[in-house]
């Protein structure tokens, strides 16, 4: 069961897409077609350094601080949205 309202999730998803595009501009189509089920590694091809970029920009964009859990703990786009909404509510 995902958390947050549909609007809230959409808003975070759109902002996340922007960040994903800038994290790796060589793969815009995959980002464009992504859904909450899209896997960050196997579908979008993000490397560990791209993931690091993602976290740094997400912290700035959403005004949150990620825990020390590794970014590799996220599987799908939906997992990231869950984490952000959870953090914003905390």
């Amino acid at each position, binding site marked *: 069961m995902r958390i947050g309202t549909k609007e809230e999730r959409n808003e975070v998803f759109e902002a996340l897409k922007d960040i994903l595009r800038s994290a790796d501009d*060589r793969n815009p189509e995959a980002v464009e077609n992504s859904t909450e089920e899209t896997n960050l590694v196997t579908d979008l091809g993000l490397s560990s350094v791209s993931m690091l970029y993602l976290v740094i920009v997400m912290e700035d964009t959403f005004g949150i601080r990620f825990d020390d859990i*590794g970014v590799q703990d996220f599987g799908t786009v939906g997992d990231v949205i869950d984490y952000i909404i959870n953090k914003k509510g905390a």
Partner: protein
Amino acid sequence: MTVFETREKFRKYTTPETFEKIVEYPSVSAMWKACLASYAEREAIVDNGQTRTFEQLEHDAASFRTVLRKAGLKKGDRVAVLIPNCYDFAKVLIAVTTSGMTACVLPAHLDEQPVFGCCMKFGAKALVYEPALESKTAFAAAHKPDLVLLPSSAAGAVLTPACDADAKDGCLVMFTGGTTGKSKGALLSNGAVMQGVTNGCYGTAEVFGQRYLLILPLSHVFGLIRNLLSSLYTGSTLYICRNNKDMFRDIAVFRPTILVAVPALAEMALALSRKFGKNMLGDDMKTIICGAAAVPPYLISAYKTYGITLFPGYGLTESANLVSGNPEPDEKPDSVGIPYPHQEFRIENGELWLKGANMFDCYLNDPEENENAFEDGWFRTGDLVRLDEDGFLYITGRIKEIIVLPSGENISPAEVEAKFNELPLVQDSQVFEDLDADGKHILALEVVPRMSELARIAPEAQGKALSEALDRVNRSLPSFQRVNKITVRDSDFARTPSMKIVRYHKV
């Protein structure tokens, strides 16, 4: 053609005073004593909000030498070190190496069984671990009862002074995939380590009294030799970044002047600088030492606009990190530079072969790997190179099985394949480097399903069962080993006459 390099080639890249200060020491002990004589009150390491001077680092190392001594360890013994990047790593490393012992540096992410395996293979008498990693010592404690376990937080009541060591005495055992990709330990002597540290001083104008930022893992020679030991050697201050995601906050506080980075990290910092419209590495940053993977030349001109000179280099674990460095990046952005001093090299059928003071002794307890690695006393790097008329080297390809990603991480296809091959549904697999539709380097996997197992599943559910099983394995791998693309084949791979899989070379 065999070429022997001397240090004179590098004289013109710095001031005469700086050049004369670059002196050679036979051992880490000798270097450390010289550091203490010159820089005792200088700040050596900043970590977790605490600053320690060279003198304080020596005090803590001397206390830990006592811990080693009281545990019955002697000069010549090997001591495994399982500590992530932090001050205690530096303390333990100095204590072990200046006690005349050899530090076997284990990556902190290793699980308990590989930790035990390394202790056995490297012949370690003791294992020094960070208390937070204690659970990873349980398997070794149960299966090797004579292994001395020491937490890195231990302290002796008295101080034990450093002892002398010869250049030929063992200093480090570093974990590497090497030429064939099978994990093993490269034994580096004190002389080799110190040649590596000294060579890192050549080719840049600013050398001594720098402010270094540590991002790279200390279990890698680039982090250990070119970052930590170079910082100590040059009387610089090292700031240890504990979590990479905080590196830009750390930079704002510490204001580093030099960064040692893999290309992917340098690219990421550049992308962030462009996104946020400011130099994320800070106005004090003047130098980036970049290596461990191919350096995209555009990085050199892009960083120039921020007033930062990026120096590409080339090195191996087996060469104590440093083989060559490029002191003229603007003129020759594609080159990995001039080979460093006290190193002989020759190019055989395009492959670079090395000999010299910085080279490792052997892979520990691995006769087969040693047999394959050397030819007539030359180390075969597996890298294809060319040399231009000015003596600058260019990497043109690789003949190794190992895959080097832009992040500098070495992937052994065989190791990753073994994980997927454990699945009953998988007959065989191949991991290889590929380009996606947009030309991006990715790690790809092709599998041949085991039809007999697949037949036990309802036809309509087979695809889902297989893809879920593959995804589960992929998720269980360390992030750098995960494949980005999975293809299921409907026929076997092409095979050699000895039935080995014919490996793809798509990149």
